[in-house]
């Protein structure tokens, strides 16, 4: 069928072949027939052939080479989807001979106009590297280039490639750190996980610890940082204030919204980031989100509970308010139950112990015996940790001894043994009780424990112990090793304390088996010296065992990792380094060449990580296909001579950058905005609000507006305006809508009529206004009606105008802000909203705080106004 002329028949055949592959059957003998179809026009057939190729190419390398030329051709296809998938398949064919071809393809794709293709090339890097590690150096170059990519699509994949190829080349991240932080929210969810985990490692090497205030602790002694809150507070007051690196803060701030993600992996990775990086008092914000994840699938619960278990050891307070969320249900899987139990035990303190113990009582009765046994151990741990309840627990456990179930009894015995050991006070009653039960207990561990207890405290129960020993002697041969050992122990101890009653017995049963002890205790002449010490050896006070959590040592591993889950180091696990004692140079992350941030004259420098010199170099390389844009730059008027060259670079770049469409950004010229780092994404930063309509003039209706600085949803040529309408009157306003407008040609996208606005209520509506790049005011009317008395409707007309002058500065919604800095020249490029005219601004800093400001644009009116406002703004600053 594969040889057939009809596509449908071929397709049918290929489907069967893929079916075979899916079932794990061998279909390799069909290789020659399948490979022929690689150039098929039918896209589905082609895809199936790809699936086949990727599966079998490794085994049939020679034949697979036949298909390579098809892919090479497809790499030049105008359709980005085809280019992308060709690269995907090409890089998936694990045939060593084509490594150079792949390398070439990756390099080309990394400079592709389509972010989708660039993303594919990032994936291909990893594939090539795993096939031929010798290419590392060349691949790192490509990674370096792709890291600078501003598309959110690429970011996740390239960081993934970075993690795989050169996780130690932290220097590549510096320049991109801020950009990655700012893009993070918009990256697809899987990329977020990878980026967050990379940034966690990065931050641990680049910032100083927010935990140790002052030099009170030795840096290596990390344990000390986890100490209780009270101690921490003390530190804070004593030590000199710790100032967090703004970049550190940026990371924390930008990851916080991701706690609300629906993807559990993202939430977990943010949680671990906070755990490892945030100051102690800020970690608490992750709690709620983690508890939320417990509602998810069983497997998710398992992992999250493991992590919570580790966290709760160090910081009880974090999860204590949510204690009830960890209550066990009878339908939970056993490993979930055990983990919940673990957490409850960790959370136990004086205040809540009674509640927890009451809860534990229910669990002990569980039908799941493994779980019941775990509960008993948990009770034991609570009892040792909180001394107030030790007696209560002990009594409870003794009651359990009469339980019908063997495992429960056995576990209780073992735990009681441990508890008694920690509290060697008078507990002879319990020991007597246990001796009575001894006959009924069959689990060897429990029997051994009782025997041990007898021996250890035989002075307190002088009458019972020999009886028990007598019983044991009879059944000795049938017992398990551990019980035998303890019997011998008991006999020896008894001999020393109570030799009269036990002498016979001892000789009777231990003779051959325990030569050592016999020598020790049978008082023959030779071993007289030893005998002296026998008592000391056997009855030496034993150190009490420490009952502690199994999760105690898991904090070695980074939370949320596979290694943490397995509690062993997984292959490829990267250690999270300790905080550096001294922060490495912060300026490495700065994108500018010079760093005049604190110089008031140069307030215009936007320390956004959006732009860097390299991007212009990059654009140089792609200049061949940006002919259109360079002609655009020639149009711009009044170019100043020395800057011509630089300008050309700038104008090319927007052309290139406008393709991704992803991140429409604004350039901020206005100095009222603080010098914040998060300028790049439109959603950040304060927004200046202007009054449109005062409530006095508006008869109760007041309106304020601000420019949301986001691309307008309605039409690209419009400026998005957000109007906040507030009803400050005492009656509700109805039917608020926009009425007449002037000039009539003005293109406004009105908001939908607001049917009713209650008193004191406010509503935010968004409008789109096309100012046609002019500075003329937009006049329009608000119409609102309200009832003073029913049936009488007053119509009011409010007329006002948006002051376009203020607007003028803001019209610059720049499709791709680009700034190039050469020592002290700063260049900005942007486009106007509706006519897409280029606006170029250059600012040259001179000595003695003067600057030369040049604005180039074809809109001369705009240029002069912009110049004036900028000058004003600069002067103010």
């Amino acid at each position: 069928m594969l040889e057939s002329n009809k596509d449908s028949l071929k397709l049918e055949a290929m489907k069967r072949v893929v079916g075979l592959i899916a079932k794990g059957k061998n279909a390799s003998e069909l290789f020659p027939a399948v490979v022929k179809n690689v150039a098929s026009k039918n896209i589905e057939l082609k895809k199936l052939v790809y699936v086949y190729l990727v599966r079998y190419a490794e085994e049939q390398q020679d034949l697979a080479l036949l298909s390579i030329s098809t892919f090479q051709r497809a790499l030049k296809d105008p359709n980005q989807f085809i280019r992308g998938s060709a690269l995907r398949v090409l890089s998936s064919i694990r045939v060593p001979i084509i490594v150079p071809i792949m390398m070439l393809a990756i390099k080309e794709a990394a400079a592709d106009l389509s972010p989708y293709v660039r993303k594919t090339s990032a994936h291909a890097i990893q594939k090539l590297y795993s096939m031929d590690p010798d290419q590392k150096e060349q691949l790192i170059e490509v990674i370096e280039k792709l890291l600078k990519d501003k598309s959110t699509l690429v970011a996740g994949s390239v960081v993934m490639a970075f993690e795989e190829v050169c996780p130690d080349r932290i220097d590549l991240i510096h320049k991109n750190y801020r950009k990655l932080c700012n893009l993070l929210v918009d990256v697809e969810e899987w990329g977020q996980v990878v980026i967050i985990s990379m940034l966690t490692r990065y931050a641990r090497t680049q910032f100083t610890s927010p935990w140790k205030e002052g030099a009170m602790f030795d840096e290596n002694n990390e344990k000390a940082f986890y100490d209780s809150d009270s101690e921490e507070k003390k530190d804070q007051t004593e030590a000199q204030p710790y100032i967090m690196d703004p970049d550190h803060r940026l990371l924390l701030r930008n990851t916080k919204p991701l706690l609300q993600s629906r993807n559990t992996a993202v939430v977990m990775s943010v949680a671990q980031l906070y755990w490892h990086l945030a100051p102690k008092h800020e970690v608490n914000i992750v709690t709620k989100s983690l508890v939320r994840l417990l509602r998810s699938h069983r497997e998710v619960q398992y992992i999250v509970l493991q992590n919570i278990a580790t966290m709760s050891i160090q910081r009880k307070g974090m999860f204590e308010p949510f204690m009830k969320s960890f209550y066990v249900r009878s339908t939970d899987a056993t490993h979930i139950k055990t983990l919940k139990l673990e957490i409850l035990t960790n959370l136990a303190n004086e205040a809540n112990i009674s509640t927890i113990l009451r809860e534990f009582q229910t669990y002990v009765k569980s039908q799941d015996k493994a779980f019941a046994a775990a509960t008993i151990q948990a009770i034991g741990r609570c009892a040792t940790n909180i001394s107030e309840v030790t007696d209560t627990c002990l009594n409870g456990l003794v009651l359990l001894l009469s339980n019908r179930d063997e495992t429960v009894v056995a576990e209780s015995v073992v735990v009681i043994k441990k508890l008694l050991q920690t509290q060697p006070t008078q507990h002879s009653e319990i020991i007597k009780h246990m001796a009575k039960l001894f006959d009924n207990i069959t689990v060897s561990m429990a029997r051994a424990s009782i025997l041990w207890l007898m021996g250890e405290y035989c002075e307190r129960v002088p009458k019972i112990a020999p009886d028990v020993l007598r019983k044991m002697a009879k059944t000795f041969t049938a017992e398990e090793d551990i019980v035998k050992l303890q019997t011998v122990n008991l006999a020896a101890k008894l001999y020393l304390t109570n030799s009269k009653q036990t002498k016979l017995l001892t000789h009777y049963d231990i003779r051959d088996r325990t030569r050592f002890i016999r020598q020790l205790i049978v008082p023959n002449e030779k071993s007289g010296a030893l005998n002296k010490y026998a008592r000391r050896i056997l009855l030496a006070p034993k150190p009490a065992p420490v009952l502690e959590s199994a999760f105690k040592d898991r904090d070695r591993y980074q939370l949320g990792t596979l290694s943490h889950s397995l509690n062993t180091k997984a292959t490829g696990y990267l250690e999270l380094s300790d905080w550096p004692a001294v922060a490495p140079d912060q300026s490495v992350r700065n994108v500018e060449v010079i760093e005049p941030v604190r110089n008031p004259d140069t307030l215009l420098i936007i320390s956004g990580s959006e732009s860097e010199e390299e991007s212009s170099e990059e654009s140089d390389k792609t200049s061949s296909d940006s002919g259109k844009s360079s002609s655009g730059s020639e149009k711009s008027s009044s170019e100043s001579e020395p800057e011509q060259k630089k300008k050309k670079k700038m104008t090319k770049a927007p052309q290139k950058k406008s393709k991704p469409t992803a991140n429409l950004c604004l350039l901020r010229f206005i100095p009222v905005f603080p010098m914040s780092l998060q300028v790049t994404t439109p959603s950040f930063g304060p927004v200046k609000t202007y009054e449109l309509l005062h409530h006095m003039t508006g008869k109760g209706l007041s309106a304020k507006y601000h420019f949301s600085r986001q691309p307008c949803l309605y039409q690209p040529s419009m400026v998005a305006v957000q109007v906040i309408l507030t009803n400050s009157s005492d009656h509700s306003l109805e039917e608020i809508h926009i009425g007449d407008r002037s000039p009539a040609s003005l293109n406004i996208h009105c908001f939908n009529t607001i049917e009713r606005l209650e008193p004191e209520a406010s509503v935010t509506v968004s409008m789109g206004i096309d100012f046609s790049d002019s500075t003329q005011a937009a006049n329009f009317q608000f119409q609102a009606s309200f009832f003073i008395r029913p049936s009488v409707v007053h119509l009011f007309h409010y007329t006002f105008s948006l002051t376009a002058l203020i607007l003028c500065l803001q019209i610059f919604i720049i499709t791709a802000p680009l700034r190039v800095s050469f020592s002290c020249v700063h260049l900005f490029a942007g486009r106007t909203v509706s006519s897409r005219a280029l606006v170029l601004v250059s600012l040259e800093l001179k000595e003695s705080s003067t600057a030369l400001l040049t604005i180039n644009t074809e809109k001369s009116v705009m240029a002069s106004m912009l110049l004036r406002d900028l000058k004003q703004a600069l002067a103010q600053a």
Partner: protein
Amino acid sequence: MILQQQISVELNMRNSPSDPPCQSALFKGGHQNITFHQHVNPSQFIVWELLQDGPICRRLFSNSGNFWHTGTISCNIPELAAEMIHSLFLINHSGDIFLEKHWKSVISRSVCDYFFEAKEKAVDPENVSPVLQTPHHYLITIYRDKLFFLSVIQTEVPPLFVIEFLHRVADTIQDYFGECSESVIMDNVVTVYELLEEMLDNGFPLATESNVLKEMIRPPTILRSVVNTLTGGSNVGDTLPTGQLSNIPWRRAGVKYTNNEAYFDVIEEIDAILDKSGSTVFAEIQGVIEACVRLTGMPDLTLSFMNPRLLDDVSFHPCVRFKRWESERVLSFIPPDGNFTLMNYHVSSQNLVAIPVYVKQSITFFEMGPCGRLDITIGPKQTMGKTVEALMVTIHMPKAVLSANLTPTQGNYTYDLATKVLVWDIGKLNPQKLPNLRGSLSLQAGAPKPEDNPSLNIDLKIQQVAISGLKVSRLDMYGEKYKPFKGVKYLTKAGKFQVRT
């Protein structure tokens, strides 16, 4: 990351495929020329195998009379490269592997044996640990709809990343074919395979948004399969889905409907544990807003609540603008097309949770004779004036309970002998005549009396009310001119509602 360490790849040489290996060695990863020196008997087969959890390279030589003393095999030994997800196996309830997909070199299905071992041990499939370690790999498994999705991992990766992805795979299959079961997957094996191919590239998730996938691989419909057979068209799109590129990947461009509608279901689940006496040990409300939006163009919706303060902890579909929520407590979003989960929320635990029903129960097992008695009555408590529907009680009986002889005053009951689950399906709760189930349980003769009473799991539904009192106040649409049909429905359900006895 590649580890330049020696990995234990075995080279086995056998005289015939069935013979035991006579020589093995360790090799470094990467491209290797392996020279061998071996005396070979004439007219015999010699099999070379490089093993790493199964053969990775196999050469068969037929000697046909020649003496082979030395030779070289050129082969590529896999490195320990970190792709997040290496392979995926789908395993049914009875332990058959019915589908396998490898995103890199092939891993023998023998790797699943470790999993089967763990499964044997755990008895109940729910109890199998999701993360397992084998000598060379790590196995991460999810159990859903009676199927195991087993992924093979080679290096460090956040386990939740894999788990979340596997659940997405299951969700996508569910979304495409209506259910996620072995028969459905096998019927559509090619489509599933294509989907897996698109969802993961080199072990890293590529496209997991349902609408992006649907543009690339169209879900099967009867009409389309007829059309395709006639015209020779295909189910596979040839252009890059628009969503893949934009920064709103969840919505495709150019959506058109004749009837524009947006419906929201506010569904709340009560999680509660009640103790023997009927008092609440623990109770909380988890809510979810499911949306079904069929709107033309690029609508921008704003959903606001009467009482947003009730919401304590929320998680959103990526479309929701978090900033607006932070500042104004409204949900502002450009919705995906079709059905999706808009948000999940948790109602703050400070608020008292209304428990809609009370349960009077007594389950006793007698010391004498192999029998016990059961008596359960359910009545309404705080139902907000609505009727409780679809009431159902599920009891996991102790293993010793052989059979149940009960009489319900309403509804009917079943007792599954194999799983020991008693299900009493009541239906509507009539406050005038409370449903009651009583009768005797017979125990296995000779077995000790179960010392613990089983707990009761209760299911119920209350239409037209969200038990937390959450109300949607309005839905506004911007960006498009038409008027859509809007609707909000409320529903309260029992989540993990358990009564201890």
